[in-house]
């Protein structure tokens, strides 16, 4: 409802246009939402802005005294409420209605000048386009265009940067890949060379060992004849010296056999036949053989931890025997006179037997420990003792244990002895003689 005193006044007073616009808007709002609600909406809009305009007796702001800011807040407040309830299009149409009512009183120029500033952007766009001068429109479009261009340039700049970064990363990655493959390939080839060299070395040893066998056998046979008196009676002194020669020869034969043994294991000429095997029997057997040697040095061997119903292990009896022979032979060889050797068998993790062979001999120095299982390796302190040893014993032992699926390790301190421990798998069934190469 208009205030009729304003009706016919086509005033050029600029401010009146804005005031009238607000008035019209408020009236429209009242008819949509009711007076009370509109008043509350306006009040909370102002409290949000933390401003409080002067209000009239009806609780509504005094429009004549309102400045541009105040009017803007009022318009926003109403338009938000309207958008919430009826949507943007409807709200825009309300604005258009108010403007067209205004245009009966005010000129287009005045409305553009006074009302446009208090209307939030987005509203009355169509009307703006219609009424704005071509120059103004062009200016607005240019402004927008410049802004968009700027945004676009920024984005393109960012994309160019990212792309450059990515390309640099890819280039580095490719280069790294090249280096990796090259290194890998070089390593593979180096390994191949080493393997070939190793083969040559083994081949050589094998040939030499084979060649030595015959002459050594010859010497053994000859000495035997002499010692037995087959070639004439000997004096005691002569016999003693011949026996020394015989012993030395036997030692050489043993060394040569060691070397041949290692070669056979390496070349896979050795076949394994796995059966359930009783370790206690093997150990007892080996100890029986080594007893004279041990007694000669006064060494005590303790094999007390042998459970009477020890489970059988899955293994090749001949090879396992070689393992014990080697370890115990070493233990005796490197023990001091009156030393102690202890052998124990323990059930380990339900699937294997743990064997320990412990001596208190010369032990293995720390810096030599990592090589102890290598072929032909003899620790410095063993070499110093001037005992025999091809350095193959432990190599063969490790090979055999691992073929059985077990593991071998040791603990040692120089001068205090060494404890070798290894595992062997339990026989999986109680059925006798399961040959792995036959299925039943």
């Amino acid at each position, binding site marked *: 409802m208009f205030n009729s005193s304003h009706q016919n006044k086509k005033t050029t007073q600029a401010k009146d246009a804005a005031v009238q616009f607000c008035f019209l808007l408020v009236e429209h709002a009242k008819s949509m939402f009711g007076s009370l609600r509109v008043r509350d909406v306006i009040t909370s809009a102002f409290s949000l802005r933390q401003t409080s305009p002067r209000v009239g007796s009806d609780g509504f702001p005094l429009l004549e005294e309102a400045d541009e800011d105040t009017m803007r807040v009022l318009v926003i407040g109403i338009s938000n409420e309207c958008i919430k309830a009826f949507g943007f299009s409807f709200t825009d149409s309300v604005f258009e209605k108010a403007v067209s009512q205004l245009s009966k009183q005010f000129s287009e120029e005045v409305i553009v000048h006074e009302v446009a500033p208090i209307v939030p952007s987005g509203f009355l766009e169509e009307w703006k386009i219609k009424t704005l001068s071509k120059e103004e429109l062009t200016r607005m479009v240019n402004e927008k265009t410049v802004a968009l261009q700027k945004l676009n340039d920024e984005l393109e700049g960012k994309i160019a940067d990212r792309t450059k970064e990515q390309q640099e990363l*890819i280039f580095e990655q*490719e280069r790294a*890949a090249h280096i990796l493959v*090259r290194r890998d390939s070089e390593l593979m080839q180096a390994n191949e060379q080493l393997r070939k060299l190793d083969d040559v070395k083994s081949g050589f040893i094998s040939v030499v060992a084979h060649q030595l066998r015959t002459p050594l056998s010859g010497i053994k046979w000859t000495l035997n004849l002499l010692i037995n008196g087959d070639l004439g009676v000997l004096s005691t002194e002569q016999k003693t010296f011949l026996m020394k020669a015989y012993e030395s020869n036997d030692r050489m034969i043993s060394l040569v056999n060691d070397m041949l043994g290692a070669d056979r294991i390496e070349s*896979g000429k050795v076949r394994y036949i796995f059966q359930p095997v009783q370790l206690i029997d093997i150990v007892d057997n080996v100890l029986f053989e080594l007893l004279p040697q041990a007694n000669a040095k006064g060494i005590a061997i303790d094999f007390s931890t042998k459970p009477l119903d020890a489970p059988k292990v899955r293994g090749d009896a001949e090879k396992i025997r070689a393992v014990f022979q080697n370890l115990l032979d070493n233990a005796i060889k490197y023990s001091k006179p009156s030393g102690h050797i202890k052998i124990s068998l323990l059930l380990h993790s339900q699937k294997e037997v743990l064997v320990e062979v412990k001596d208190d001999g010369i032990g293995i120095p720390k810096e030599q420990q990592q090589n102890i299982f290598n072929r032909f390796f003899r620790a410095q302190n063993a070499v110093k003792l001037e005992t025999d040893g091809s350095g193959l014993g432990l190599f063969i032992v490790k090979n055999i244990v691992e073929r059985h699926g077990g593991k071998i390790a040791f603990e040692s301190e120089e001068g205090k002895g060494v404890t070798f421990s290894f595992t062997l798998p339990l026989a999986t069934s109680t059925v006798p003689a399961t040959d792995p190469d*036959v299925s039943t």
Partner: protein
Amino acid sequence: MSIKASVGLSQGDDSHAVGANAAQEALERLGVPKADILFVFSSSQYDQEKMLAGIRSVTMDTLLVGCSTAGEITTEGPVPRASVAIMAVKADGVSFFAGVGELIGEGAHQAGAALADSITKQAQGATLGACIMLSDVITGNGADVVKGAISGLGDLVPIVGGAAGDDFEFRQTFQYLNDKVYSGAVVGVALSGAFKMGTGVRHGWIPIGLPKRVTRSEGSVLHELDGRPAISLYEEYFGPEQAAELKQETLARLAIMYPLGMRVKGSDEFLIRDPIFANATGSITCAAEIPEGSDIRLMIGSREEALRVAREAAANALAQLAGATPKAVIIFSSVARSKLFGERNGEEINVVQEIVGQDIPLVGFYTYGEHAPLGKEVCIGEHCNSVFHNETIVVVILGE
């Protein structure tokens, strides 16, 4: 207990004796006077005819299929030196139909089809449960041989097996059927009847570097990558020093560990193609085709991955037996894996045996290529997609 298997192994210098001894051992361990079929894997160093004659002198007319290798494998692991490994199988309730397709060099597809033809003629309508095929990739496209076989057998028959080797020389391989030695051929045997088979196939190689596009290729010959001669890929990666060697040495010897991989549907692993030869213009002949337009990656082997997936392949194969008891294991492992593992190649066989059983008779060889259904490995009764692989380990378990 109607499927029995045993393995015999022999080494030595006399080709005839080595064959005879291996056969003797296999039969003795089998425990019955005659086997139903023998699988023979022999070093190419032996006189092939003499070796085969040696075997036949013991086994007479027992059905025999086999081939030369780049290394033999038995229950005790990879055999370190030249040998003859034989698996003897007795299986009541299983019929075996064996055949050969010759002259892969003149037509790989035709050779595969000829083999299939020979088999189906003998089978006379019996339902075939599996086909074990041993081929040659030096004279022809390995994948085409498989496709040829499928064209005759149909795609309900899983095809497993491998490409024969020659101790890493890449000159000539041999295939055996009964008393005859072939070269450049494919031999195979189909099984029908009461048995279960499980197959696992994996490689574990990983892609490295950027993808390259195959801009020109023809069958198994790769001409250009990204518009440049194919060999440039290896020249780039190996560096100038090694690149010079590439032109002189057989490419396979240098590059088999760094093959080419491409993505294929139906498998979460890349399908790998080994490079075999390079020619003067820089084109590379691979063991099987890489289609024009494919994106390929250079692949690099990792020992840990290769070992891990070997276990997976074994587990997959075992799972497919669905509770049946494993009676025999046949392993087709790429020679590249043997090179990758080096002295430790026993570990790969160990992990398979850990899964399947330490004492199950096992035979196998290091191949120049493998045959197995791709990806989804259960294919008895469903459509199999048997393809040609490289760099993989194929674990085949026979059970009942």
